[in-house]
């Protein structure tokens, strides 16, 4: 046993080195992320900024870049919002079933099956979207057009192929469900027993226990899960490109053939035939998407911290 408190023997000195090295690696990894992101941003800026001010013929029907990107941005956000509205409650529901409702025998296969969804490549989602989902939804859109056409969302005319932004949003929803579910169920199931039992012992029903003990504990994880899902929905390329009948302008009509494209799918669709100038325009739209993601996250974070502060009041 050492007789002094200060580290002297080699084992202890090494431990200190170990700590420094390890924390150094951790820091380096963090910084690597910053560098990578800065790299992406710089790349987008260098290649994209010339695309902001090209002659009008580069922007199709629009007269300038903003007119070109606005419907794309709108389409991106609209599809992502539809996806979130559909996916988030479903995903949280499934996560709860797996973590708190179903017996283990049932929960494990459900979790596994949902995880499988995450494994399906976006191309396959695209193929399935066009060949299976869209035809199934076609009559639904016709019905909505006839019976709910007074709502601007269902103004119609209903698409003849079912490949609308609503369909794209639904495909995106299915794509992000496993992401949101996986993280949410992980944090749900980590809720300390102590807190769950505290709620149950007060005579809480299961749902009340979830609300009192599980949700508050899991909140940050739930938000992360949603942000991950949102990120994927905003940036999804192939599935949207394949499923969506794109090319329209800004419109809240969810069931017609004429839909705004999303930024990512528009890049993928038009990159192939792009001349260098056109590609600069496309990359500039990528830059816009990047900045939007930045803003969305900023807003989400702000809301979360504000809520937390309110809580700590």
């Amino acid at each position: 046993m050492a007789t002094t408190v200060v580290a002297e023997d080699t084992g202890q000195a090494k431990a200190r080195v170990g700590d420094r090295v390890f924390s150094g690696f951790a820091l380096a990894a963090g910084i690597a992320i910053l560098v990578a992101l800065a790299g992406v941003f710089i790349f987008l800026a260098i290649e994209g900024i010339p695309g902001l001010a090209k002659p009008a013929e580069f922007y199709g029907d629009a007269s300038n870049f903003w007119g070109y990107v606005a419907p794309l941005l709108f389409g991106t956000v609209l599809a992502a919002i539809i996806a979130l509205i559909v996916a988030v409650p479903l995903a949280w529901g499934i996560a709860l079933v797996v973590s708190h409702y179903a017996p283990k025998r049932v929960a494990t296969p459900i979790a596994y099956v949902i995880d499988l969804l995450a494994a399906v490549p976006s191309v396959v989602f695209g193929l399935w979207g066009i060949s299976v989902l869209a035809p199934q939804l076609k009559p639904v859109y016709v019905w909505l057009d006839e019976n709910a056409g007074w709502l601007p969302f269902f103004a119609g005319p209903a698409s003849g192929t079912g490949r609308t932004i609503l369909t794209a949003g639904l495909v995106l929803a299915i794509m992000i469900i496993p992401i949101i579910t996986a993280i949410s169920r992980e944090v749900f199931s980590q809720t300390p027993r102590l807190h769950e039992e505290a709620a149950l012992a007060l005579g809480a029903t299961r749902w009340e226990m979830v609300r009192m003990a599980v949700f508050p504990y899991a909140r940050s994880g739930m938000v992360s899960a949603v942000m991950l899902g949102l990120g994927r929905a905003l940036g999804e390329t192939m599935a949207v490109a394949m499923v969506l009948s794109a090319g329209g302008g800004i419109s809240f009509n969810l069931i017609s053939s004429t839909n705004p494209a999303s930024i990512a799918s528009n890049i993928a669709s038009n990159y192939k035939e792009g001349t260098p100038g056109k590609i600069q325009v496309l990359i500039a739209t990528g830059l816009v998407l990047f900045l939007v993601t930045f803003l969305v996250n900023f807003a989400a974070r702000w809301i979360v911290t504000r809520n937390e502060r309110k809580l700590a009041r």
Partner: protein
Amino acid sequence: MSTTAAPVRPRSEPVSFTAARLPRFAPLLVAVVAIAAGALPMLLLGWGVVGWALLTGLVYLVALPLWSRVVEGRRGAADRMVTGLVWAACLVAIVPLVSLLWTVVDRGLPAINSTFLTYSMYRTSLDQEVGIYHALIGTVLITLFAAIISVPIGIMAAIYLIEYGKGKRLARWITFLVDVMTGIPSIVAGLFAFALFILLFGPSTRVGIGGSVALSLLMIPIVVRSTEEMLRLVPAELREAAYALGVPKWRTIVKVVLPTALGGIVTGVTLSIARVVGETAPLLLIAGLTTRTNFNVFDGRMTTLPVLIYTQNANPGIAEVPGGIRPGIEMAWGGALVLIVIVMVLNLAARIIGKIFAPKTGH
């Protein structure tokens, strides 16, 4: 004590434990009624199966809570409502999954045989058989290298955020930017990797590792995010227990914190792999397309399964017999099935690993 305070609820009559409960068979009964009610318009108005299922669900979700509301009161109704809703969520999510899996299996299975799995698409005459072996190898290698790049960076970054950087400005920025990074569209990641490799290795470089780099950009944020959440959930008491034994911080992290969180971390890594293994756009750009099997990610083109699926579907060729299945279409679905099976196996492996290392509680 109640002399000083007004009772919260009237305590005059003893409350029975059994008061106001729906019979045990209530959910079943309501379900049967709902199914019947749902079937009615199907018979009378000719609604489809989808309409029937929707109506059944709706009737159940309205009727049971209503009944419960009358008998059991607000809280019981809310509980039953939520129980119904979460299970409905499960069913609703499983429907498209089953449809999708069925489609893939139905269309993909006929393509699969030993040639399909062991031959590449390289051929020297048109009547030779082809397979997806080269794409299988490409997918496995490119994804493996993507994981090799992103898992250590992701986990270490999460460790920095939770264990070292807490409260620091830099950590707050990294957390925030990781969220931003989750929103990078895959095509932008591909363009970036492409530009980077052109800068480093000359024009139109196409190389497998470039695909790995592009995929890493997509994987890292998922790994960081999920790991971060899991590390956050490791109780401080455990860290303190280790510190108090004179264990250095880094060993505490490696030997106590990480093992405790391992199950969740493995899930996160699997998720990130599943997320990128199906990527097409970036790989088409940077890893290119070849018909040969390439085992070297650092040199030459590599085909991956999603790229194969995409290109085969886009140019399926012509069917041997008029009206038959085009060779590319069959190959695309076959490839999709193989890809899903790969990830399924990976998932299963991750679960087993997670189970082996998960915190052991109980007997």
